[in-house]
Protein backbone atom coordinates (compact mmCIF):
# COMPACT_ATOMS: atom_id res chain seq x y z
CA UNK A 1 0.00 0.00 0.00
CA UNK A 2 1.32 3.41 -0.97
CA UNK A 3 2.19 5.75 1.88
CA UNK A 4 3.04 9.44 2.22
CA UNK A 5 4.25 10.93 5.49
CA UNK A 6 4.62 14.63 6.16
CA UNK A 7 6.48 16.39 8.93
CA UNK A 8 6.08 18.34 10.99
CA UNK A 9 2.32 18.02 11.39
CA UNK A 10 2.13 21.60 12.62
CA UNK A 11 4.46 24.58 12.66
CA UNK A 12 4.13 28.08 14.08
CA UNK A 13 6.52 30.79 12.89
CA UNK A 14 6.78 34.57 12.75
CA UNK A 15 6.50 36.63 9.63
CA UNK A 16 9.79 36.74 7.78
CA UNK A 17 10.95 33.32 8.91
CA UNK A 18 11.94 30.63 6.43
CA UNK A 19 10.28 27.23 6.76
CA UNK A 20 10.96 23.80 5.35
CA UNK A 21 8.20 21.23 5.10
CA UNK A 22 9.06 17.58 4.60
CA UNK A 23 7.39 14.81 2.68
CA UNK A 24 8.57 11.21 2.47
CA UNK A 25 6.87 8.71 0.26
CA UNK A 26 6.59 5.05 -0.55
CA UNK A 27 4.77 4.82 -3.85
CA UNK A 28 4.93 1.74 -6.01
CA UNK A 29 6.09 2.54 -9.54
CA UNK A 30 6.41 6.19 -8.62
CA UNK A 31 5.56 8.78 -11.24
CA UNK A 32 5.35 12.19 -9.58
CA UNK A 33 4.92 14.08 -6.33
CA UNK A 34 2.55 17.00 -5.97
CA UNK A 35 2.29 19.80 -3.42
CA UNK A 36 -0.98 21.55 -2.64
CA UNK A 37 -1.90 24.47 -0.40
CA UNK A 38 -5.20 24.23 1.43
CA UNK A 39 -6.67 27.26 3.14
CA UNK A 40 -10.30 27.13 4.16
CA UNK A 41 -11.61 25.27 1.17
CA UNK A 42 -10.28 23.20 -1.69
CA UNK A 43 -6.57 22.46 -2.13
CA UNK A 44 -4.85 24.56 -4.74
CA UNK A 45 -1.98 23.23 -6.79
CA UNK A 46 1.57 24.40 -6.08
CA UNK A 47 4.08 22.08 -7.73
CA UNK A 48 4.43 18.80 -9.52
CA UNK A 49 7.84 17.12 -9.32
CA UNK A 50 8.94 14.23 -11.45
CA UNK A 51 12.74 14.49 -11.64
CA UNK A 52 15.30 14.38 -8.87
CA UNK A 53 17.36 17.42 -8.06
CA UNK A 54 15.49 19.93 -10.21
CA UNK A 55 14.11 22.75 -8.12
CA UNK A 56 10.72 24.14 -8.95
CA UNK A 57 10.21 27.74 -7.89
CA UNK A 58 7.27 30.08 -7.68
CA UNK A 59 7.92 33.36 -5.93
CA UNK A 60 8.92 32.66 -2.34
CA UNK A 61 8.03 28.98 -2.63
CA UNK A 62 10.33 26.30 -3.95
CA UNK A 63 10.38 22.53 -3.92
CA UNK A 64 12.73 19.75 -4.80
CA UNK A 65 12.49 15.97 -5.09
CA UNK A 66 15.01 13.29 -4.14
CA UNK A 67 14.00 10.05 -5.79
CA UNK A 68 16.89 8.13 -4.27
CA UNK A 69 15.95 8.99 -0.68
CA UNK A 70 12.21 9.11 -1.49
CA UNK A 71 11.45 12.54 -0.13
CA UNK A 72 10.60 16.05 -1.11
CA UNK A 73 10.83 19.40 0.65
CA UNK A 74 8.82 22.54 0.26
CA UNK A 75 10.58 25.76 1.23
CA UNK A 76 8.89 29.06 1.95
CA UNK A 77 11.14 32.07 2.45
CA UNK A 78 10.17 35.39 4.04
CA UNK A 79 6.88 33.94 5.25
CA UNK A 80 3.76 36.09 5.36
CA UNK A 81 0.52 35.67 7.29
CA UNK A 82 -1.13 34.73 4.00
CA UNK A 83 1.05 31.62 3.88
CA UNK A 84 -0.89 30.21 6.82
CA UNK A 85 -2.54 27.05 5.51
CA UNK A 86 -2.33 23.29 5.44
CA UNK A 87 0.27 22.08 2.96
CA UNK A 88 -0.42 18.68 1.46
CA UNK A 89 1.88 16.49 -0.51
CA UNK A 90 0.74 13.54 -2.59
CA UNK A 91 2.45 10.75 -4.48
CA UNK A 92 1.25 9.46 -7.79
CA UNK A 93 2.09 6.09 -9.34
CA UNK A 94 2.36 5.39 -13.05
CA UNK A 95 -0.59 3.03 -12.90
CA UNK A 96 -3.70 2.61 -10.70
CA UNK A 97 -5.72 5.22 -12.53
CA UNK A 98 -3.26 7.94 -11.66
CA UNK A 99 -4.56 7.92 -8.09
CA UNK A 100 -2.86 10.22 -5.62
CA UNK A 101 -1.98 9.13 -2.08
CA UNK A 102 -2.03 12.15 0.21
CA UNK A 103 -0.09 12.78 3.38
CA UNK A 104 -1.81 14.16 6.49
CA UNK A 105 -0.61 17.65 5.79
CA UNK A 106 1.43 20.24 7.66
CA UNK A 107 -0.55 22.99 9.36
CA UNK A 108 1.55 26.16 9.01
CA UNK A 109 0.65 29.20 11.07
CA UNK A 110 2.50 32.45 10.39
CA UNK A 111 2.07 35.04 13.13
CA UNK A 112 2.59 38.75 12.51
Amino acid sequence: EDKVVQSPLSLVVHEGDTVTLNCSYEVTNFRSLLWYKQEKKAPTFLFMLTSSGIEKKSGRLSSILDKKELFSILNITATQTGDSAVYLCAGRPRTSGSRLTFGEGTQLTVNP
Partner: protein
Amino acid sequence: NAGVTQTPKFRILKIGQSMTLQCTQDMNHNYMYWYRQDPGMGLKLIYYSVGAGITDKGEVPNGYNVSRSTTEDFPLRLELAAPSQTSVYFCASSYVGGSNEKLFFGSGTQLSVL
Protein backbone atom coordinates in the same frame (compact mmCIF):
# COMPACT_ATOMS: atom_id res chain seq x y z
CA ASN B 1 -14.32 29.38 -16.01
CA ALA B 2 -16.43 27.23 -13.69
CA GLY B 3 -13.90 24.39 -13.27
CA VAL B 4 -15.21 21.78 -10.81
CA THR B 5 -18.57 22.56 -9.25
CA GLN B 6 -19.90 20.72 -6.22
CA THR B 7 -23.30 20.96 -4.61
CA PRO B 8 -24.46 21.30 -1.90
CA LYS B 9 -21.85 23.19 0.14
CA PHE B 10 -23.32 22.06 3.46
CA ARG B 11 -25.71 19.30 4.48
CA ILE B 12 -26.93 17.74 7.70
CA LEU B 13 -28.33 14.22 7.53
CA LYS B 14 -29.96 11.97 10.05
CA ILE B 15 -28.62 8.45 10.50
CA GLY B 16 -30.05 6.19 7.80
CA GLN B 17 -30.95 8.95 5.36
CA SER B 18 -29.68 8.99 1.80
CA MET B 19 -28.31 11.76 -0.34
CA THR B 20 -26.37 12.47 -3.51
CA LEU B 21 -23.45 14.87 -3.73
CA GLN B 22 -23.31 16.40 -7.17
CA CYS B 23 -20.10 17.13 -9.07
CA THR B 24 -19.67 18.50 -12.54
CA GLN B 25 -16.64 19.73 -14.46
CA ASP B 26 -16.44 21.72 -17.68
CA MET B 27 -12.79 21.13 -18.55
CA ASN B 28 -13.35 17.93 -20.55
CA HIS B 29 -11.21 16.03 -18.06
CA ASN B 30 -11.22 12.26 -18.41
CA TYR B 31 -10.47 11.42 -14.76
CA MET B 32 -12.71 12.34 -11.86
CA TYR B 33 -12.31 11.57 -8.16
CA TRP B 34 -14.14 11.75 -4.87
CA TYR B 35 -12.10 12.34 -1.71
CA ARG B 36 -13.09 12.74 1.90
CA GLN B 37 -11.12 14.72 4.44
CA ASP B 38 -11.59 14.20 8.15
CA PRO B 39 -10.43 16.91 10.59
CA GLY B 40 -6.65 17.17 10.76
CA MET B 41 -6.20 14.46 8.16
CA GLY B 42 -5.18 14.25 4.55
CA LEU B 43 -7.50 13.28 1.73
CA LYS B 44 -8.69 9.72 1.35
CA LEU B 45 -9.86 8.48 -2.05
CA ILE B 46 -13.40 7.09 -2.08
CA TYR B 47 -14.01 6.35 -5.76
CA TYR B 48 -12.57 7.44 -9.05
CA SER B 49 -13.45 7.25 -12.72
CA VAL B 50 -11.18 7.10 -15.74
CA GLY B 51 -13.94 7.99 -18.18
CA ALA B 52 -17.66 7.83 -18.83
CA GLY B 53 -19.08 4.46 -17.86
CA ILE B 54 -15.99 3.38 -15.89
CA THR B 55 -15.63 3.66 -12.12
CA ASP B 56 -13.43 2.00 -9.53
CA LYS B 57 -13.01 1.87 -5.77
CA GLY B 58 -10.47 3.91 -3.90
CA GLU B 59 -9.20 3.46 -0.35
CA VAL B 60 -12.48 3.99 1.53
CA PRO B 61 -15.43 3.02 -0.73
CA ASN B 62 -17.71 1.35 1.84
CA GLY B 63 -21.03 3.13 2.26
CA TYR B 64 -20.78 5.01 -1.04
CA ASN B 65 -21.70 4.53 -4.67
CA VAL B 66 -20.86 6.45 -7.82
CA SER B 67 -21.81 6.58 -11.45
CA ARG B 68 -20.30 8.29 -14.48
CA SER B 69 -22.83 8.46 -17.27
CA THR B 70 -21.23 11.52 -18.89
CA THR B 71 -17.74 13.00 -19.01
CA GLU B 72 -18.92 16.05 -17.07
CA ASP B 73 -20.80 14.53 -14.12
CA PHE B 74 -19.67 12.26 -11.28
CA PRO B 75 -22.24 12.10 -8.47
CA LEU B 76 -21.51 10.41 -5.14
CA ARG B 77 -24.35 8.56 -3.43
CA LEU B 78 -24.64 7.84 0.29
CA GLU B 79 -27.34 5.21 0.80
CA LEU B 80 -27.59 4.82 4.58
CA ALA B 81 -25.80 7.70 6.24
CA ALA B 82 -23.75 6.89 9.33
CA PRO B 83 -21.97 9.23 11.78
CA SER B 84 -18.63 7.91 10.48
CA GLN B 85 -19.44 9.60 7.18
CA THR B 86 -19.31 13.04 8.77
CA SER B 87 -16.54 14.68 6.79
CA VAL B 88 -15.68 17.20 4.11
CA TYR B 89 -16.05 15.77 0.64
CA PHE B 90 -14.06 16.99 -2.34
CA CYS B 91 -14.64 16.19 -5.95
CA ALA B 92 -11.68 16.59 -8.29
CA SER B 93 -10.84 16.10 -11.93
CA SER B 94 -7.73 15.86 -14.06
CA TYR B 95 -6.71 15.22 -17.61
CA VAL B 96 -4.51 12.14 -17.61
CA GLY B 97 -2.43 11.68 -20.71
CA GLY B 98 -1.09 15.19 -21.11
CA SER B 99 2.02 16.83 -19.71
CA ASN B 100 0.38 18.43 -16.70
CA GLU B 101 -1.86 16.07 -14.79
CA LYS B 102 -2.63 18.18 -11.76
CA LEU B 103 -5.94 17.76 -9.98
CA PHE B 104 -8.49 20.53 -9.93
CA PHE B 105 -10.68 20.46 -6.84
CA GLY B 106 -14.21 21.58 -6.18
CA SER B 107 -14.92 23.79 -3.18
CA GLY B 108 -16.06 20.92 -0.99
CA THR B 109 -19.20 19.71 0.76
CA GLN B 110 -19.35 19.77 4.55
CA LEU B 111 -21.52 16.82 5.58
CA SER B 112 -22.67 16.11 9.13
CA VAL B 113 -24.53 12.92 10.03
CA LEU B 114 -26.34 13.15 13.36
